[in-house]
Structures are given as structure tokens and as C-alpha cells.
């Protein structure tokens, strides 16, 4: 690092620590050769060496101790997760997770964007359920700015959020079963994920990064054709899901691979900060849809699946049952969604409709102001809004400074919290189970790394 950079008066440098005398981990002999972040790796290995765990270290007569690096480029880590394990034979004595390989600093980026401009970035945080992230962002902005959303938009958002949950869970079940060694389920679930993409394409005009929700409502109405597609999807999907359950629920290999693996007790789950299905798999019925009802979740009838075993299999059952509940919610939404406007009619709160923009001067001016400045919550306003995504609580905390862009946002990402729990869960596990455990926790690195 050059000294002129460290002399920069505006930034506060970290006090330089003395370099570790001899990094105990692999790659130590390469110390003279250029390596990218030598202090980073030295810090991980020394932290791993000193990590206090509940696993008792034994003598090492067979010289079975070693340090294993799994990832960041490894298909079973679901992205760019790096697991550094200290092994004793096949047991993981202690492990540390190294995340941040997908860190893009979206929170910082938001500070330079208007509330509307930031919306497409939320597609890319948890990219397995973009719609839920859009809604989480819009609800957070609507809360801090006090903007009302019309009924129809609330119902449609509820329905599309549940489709997003199916999207995420379908990818999870496919990859999870593939991690455990079976390929066929992956192919089947991806067929239905593909159908969901087609539906999203019809609804939003984009298959993957939908960006369909807007502050104050939705970008466009959901057409009757799309409603028909969703209805047909539900009918097909419940039949398929029943088939998958027939294959997996009593499958001896699948159960042997998962039962009793990665057990988290009720108390541990709370204390370690698990969220979402991982919390509910350990016997805590905590679901933001019930805890703080948002959108129309207080007007639909659904159950929150819960298991008390706390192992990998319990988390599997919770997610599969959640998919059934999602279909139930989607069907109720299809029944109950009222006719009406899809966006707030207040020109200071939401984008005007294209008809207004093209055919009236006021509409044009409002469109310009909304695009340029957008909503401006008063200075000093701050609020936190959370929704229940497929992975858990997606919370967004916004501090407003009275301009069109936030002063500071903080995303409370479920994968970040679940990965922290994974670190706890993997101490004492077997190496062969790591892949199943990562799958059962269901992290998305785009979400955890922000």
C-alpha cells in the first residue's frame, strides 16, 4: 500500500497490526510470492486457531489435523461462500465462514440514488426472489414517507411475493437434493421455476430481475392472461409437489442423509439469530407475516409450518409445507383481488399513470418530478419495515434527510443471519455433511454480502 493513500486525511486508517509471525494455514510457504490479501488470510487462520468451540480437541497421534478451505469457488457453496475448517480426521473441530466475495455495497449506493432509482438494485440482493425484495424496499419507503397503497396493489403484491417464495424454495429444493446426491429433482423443480419466470415475464416484462413494484403501488396491472397463467400454474404445481413429496418424504436415502444432521435446539436457534424456515424448523413459530402483518396477510388464511426437531430434515419439511401454504395464499389472492387503481393517486407520492403523462401537462410535470427527485420523506424521519422472504426476515431501515435520496439505509438480510448460525452449526459436524448443512440453511450470497 502506498503511503500517500494512508496520508489521506479524510479516511481513518485501521491501526496496523503486527503481521502474524508465521501463518499456520496452508499457503504459508508462498509468503514471499505475491498473494492478494495476505493479512486477511493470516487473520482468518489465527482466528481459527484461537476459536473457542464446544468441541473438545483430542490428541493427534495419527496426525489427522488439517485445515480445509472449501470455496469460494465451489458449486456446493451456493455462490461464493468460503468455509475454512479445522479438521480432526473427518470431524470439523472449528470453522469460520469468510463472506464478502459478492459485496457490492448496495447500502452505500443507495445514498446516491433516489428512492425509485434504487429499486432495481434490490432485485440483485437476494436474486432468487427478486419480487420479494422489491416489495420489501417499496414498503420500507412507503413507511418512512407515510404513503398509502391501494387495495388492489396490496393484493397483487401479496400474490406475487408468494410466487417469489415458490421461486426461491424451488431452487432450494432442487439444489439441496442435488447436494445430497440426487439429480432428478433439480431438473423437475427447474421446469417449474421456468414456468414462474414465464409468469413474471408476463406480469413485469422481465423474467428474472422484475423491478415491478413501485413506491405507492405497482408499475403495471396484472392482466387477466397473467392471472390465468398463475391459476394454471397453481393447479399443475400442487400435483407435482405431491409427487415430489411421495419421492422424498419417505425416501430412505434422503432421510438418512438429513435426519439428526445439524441439530439446533429451540434456545440455540433464537440466541444464534437464525431466521425464517431455519427458526421454524427448530420449533419457534416466528413469521413476520403473523408477527407484523403487512400487505394482505391478515386477510388470507394460511398456516405457518413448524417442526420441533431442529435438524436438516425438519428444515426440509418446513420449506416443503411452506410451498403448499404459498399455493393456498395465491389461490385466495386470485379469488379476492379487487378491481381498482394499482398506484397511489397522489402525485407527490407515486408516479402518475402513462395516460396522465402523455395527455396532460400536470401529469408530465409530476412524472418529471417523480423521476428526478421522487418521494422526499421529511428530514429526521426514520423507520424499519420487515417482510418475511423465503429465507427469513428481510428488513430495511431507512434514515431520511429530507431529499429525494436516503441518508442511510441498512438492509437486514436473512442470509447474513443464517450464515452466522451456520458457523455455529458446523462446529462438530462431519466434513461429508457440510454440503448438506449449507444446503439446509439455504443462504444466498448476494443477500448476505449486500
Amino acid at each position, binding site marked *: 500500500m*502506498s503511503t500517500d*493513500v494512508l496520508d489521506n486525511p479524510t479516511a481513518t486508517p485501521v491501526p496496523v497490526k503486527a503481521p502474524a509471525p508465521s501463518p499456520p494455514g496452508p499457503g504459508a510457504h508462498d509468503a514471499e510470492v505475491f498473494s492478494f490479501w495476505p493479512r486477511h488470510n493470516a487473520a482468518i487462520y489465527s482466528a481459527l486457531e484461537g476459536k*473457542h468451540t464446544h468441541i473438545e480437541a483430542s490428541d493427534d497421534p495419527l496426525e489427522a489435523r488439517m485445515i480445509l478451505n472449501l470455496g469460494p469457488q465451489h458449486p456446493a457453496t451456493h455462490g461464493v461462500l468460503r468455509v475454512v475448517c479445522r479438521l480432526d480426521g473427518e470431524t470439523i473441530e472449528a470453522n469460520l465462514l469468510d463472506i464478502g466475495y459478492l459485496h457490492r455495497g448496495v447500502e*452505500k449506493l443507495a445514498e446516491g440514488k433516489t428512492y425509485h432509482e434504487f429499486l432495481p438494485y434490490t432485485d440483485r440482493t437476494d436474486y432468487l426472489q427478486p419480487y420479494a425484495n422489491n416489495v420489501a424496499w417499496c414498503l420500507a419507503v412507503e413507511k418512512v414517507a407515510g404513503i398509502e*397503497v391501494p387495495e388492489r396493489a396490496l393484493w397483487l403484491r401479496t400474490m406475487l411475493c408468494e410466487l417469489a417464495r415458490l421461486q426461491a424454495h424451488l431452487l432450494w429444493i432442487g439444489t439441496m437434493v442435488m447436494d445430497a446426491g440426487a439429480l432428478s429433482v433439480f431438473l423437475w423443480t427447474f421446469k417449474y421455476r421456468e414456468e414462474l419466470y414465464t409468469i413474471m415475464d408476463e406480469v413485469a416484462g422481465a423474467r428474472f430481475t422484475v423491478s415491478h413494484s413501485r413506491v405507492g403501488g405497482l408499475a403495471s396491472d396484472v392482466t387477466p392472461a397473467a392471472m390465468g397463467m398463475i391459476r394454471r400454474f397453481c393447479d399443475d404445481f400442487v400435483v407435482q409437489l405431491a409427487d415430489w413429496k411421495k419421492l422424498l418424504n419417505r425416501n430412505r436415502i434422503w432421510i438418512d442423509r438429513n435426519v439428526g444432521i445439524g441439530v439446533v435446539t429451540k434456545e440455540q436457534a433464537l440466541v444464534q439469530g437464525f431466521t425464517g424456515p431455519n427458526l421454524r424448523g427448530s420449533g419457534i413459530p416466528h413469521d413476520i407475516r403473523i*408477527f407484523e402483518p403487512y400487505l394482505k396477510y391478515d386477510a388470507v388464511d394460511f398456516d405457518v409450518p413448524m417442526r420441533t426437531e431442529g435438524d436438516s430434515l425438519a428444515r426440509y419439511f418446513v420449506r416443503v409445507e411452506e410451498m403448499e401454504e404459498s399455493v393456498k395464499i395465491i389461490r385466495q389472492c386470485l379469488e379476492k383481488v379487487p378491481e381498482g387503481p394499482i398506484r397511489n393517486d397522489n402525485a407527490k407520492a407515486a408516479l402518475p399513470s402513462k395516460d396522465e403523462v402523455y395527455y396532460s401537462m400536470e401529469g408530465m410535470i409530476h412524472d418529471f418530478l417523480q423521476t428526478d427527485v421522487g418521494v422526499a420523506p421529511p428530514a429526521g424521519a426514520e423507520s424499519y*419495515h420487515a417482510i418475511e422472504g423465503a429465507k427469513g426476515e428481510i428488513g430495511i431501515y431507512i434514515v431520511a434527510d429530507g431529499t429525494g435520496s436516503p441518508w442511510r439505509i*441498512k438492509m437486514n438480510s436473512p442470509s447474513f443471519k443464517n450464515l452466522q448460525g451456520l458457523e455455529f452449526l458446523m462446529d462438530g459436524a462431519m466434513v461429508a455433511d457440510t454440503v448438506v448443512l449449507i444446503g439446509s440453511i439455504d443462504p444466498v450470497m448476494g443477500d448476505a454480502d449486500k
Partner: protein
Amino acid sequence: MSELPDQTTPRNSAIAPQLDPAEQTQTLRFLYSPRTALAGELDRPNPHAKKTTFQPEVVAALQSRFGESVLLVTLYAGEHTVYLTRDVIVDACTFLRDEHGFDYLGDLATVDRFTEDDRFEILYNLVSVVGKKRLRLKVRVDEDDAVLPTIIGVFPAANWHEREAWDMMGIRFEGHPDLRRVFMPEDFAYFPARKDFPTLGIPGSLPLPPRVSDGPVQLDPYPAAHGEKPQD
């Protein structure tokens, strides 16, 4: 929301200056300049307010237990925020966990206010899963003394959150067993979420791979932006 009682707690003018009703016409002003709240705007019922975040009983209990250490209580969008002094934060968390059932750490966030005094804010979002309660605690610290006691002893889930606060904002937590950076590599010398960190990054702050396999290491992430031609 109609179920919420009248929000009568007065807001502190230092946090959100309000205009008096005579100046309410300012809505028509051009919005490039920051907008201050209209009179009554901050206390208006919020369509997205939740029952869980409105906790006058818990706030009163905190005030009677910690007295002077509760600096301020604010309410916006039906959310109570309790400002505490730094020295009681661990006790307050323990008190809330043991006496009021706040058994889950929802989130830990940091804000850079970019002010002379009390530059950084640290927020604790505590949740009572059974009691259906959510409360935000806030602590403010100065830039030259951005140190807090860790709450890992009360909520072990604070581990990574505190590491994130250190990594992004440079706030140290005393007693944290493993305060490493969580997103950025350990070799990185800055705190990117601070307001004075440039969005384009600091040239040379992270080494990049050589442009050719045996070429020199590229120290400037944005050579073109700084007037250099990229090496081939």
C-alpha cells in the same frame, strides 16, 4: 393505523426540526433543497405502522430503571426509539431480555450522521418473539471515541453484526472475541460506509490482479478515471 393510541410523545427539535403551522405552504417549494417536516407530519398515523413497534410500557420501564441514562424517546411511524448512554447499553439489553422477554436480536445497524459531536449512531433492533414486541435502542458515540461495549454476552447473535459495524463504519466493540472485518478483506484500511468515503473508491486501496499473467500488479482500480492508460 387506527388501533394505535394517540401519539402524544413530544419530538425533540434537535432531531427533526418542525415548521410552525403558519409556514405550512412550503409543500409547493422546489424539492431539491431538503424538506423539513410540516407541523404534525411526524406524528401523523402511518398506514404501515405495526402494533409491535409501539411499546409505551417498555419505554416507561426503561425510563424508571435507567433514569438519567435514557436521553430521549422518540416516536415516528408508530416506532419507539430509546436513546441511551453508552455505559448502560449492555445492562439495558440484559434488562429487556430478562424482564420483558426481548429474546431475539433482530438487527444491529449504524448511521454516520456526519456531525461534529455524536457522529455515529448504533441501533439495536430487539424483538420479543412470544410477546410480539419490537424496540429500537440507540447509542450515539463521538468519532474520536467510537467504542462501545459488546452485547455478545447478552445476544450471541450480535457477533457478525458487530463485525459488520466495525467493517463498514469503524466502530469498535470492546470485549468482542473476534472483531475481524466481515465483508472487506483485512488488508483494507478504510471504512466504506462512512460519509467521507468516496463512492468511486480510493485508488490503490486494494490490489487487483495483473492485466497479463506475469505482468505487474495493478494497484489502481480505476486507472482510466485517474488519467492513466491501462496496461496491456
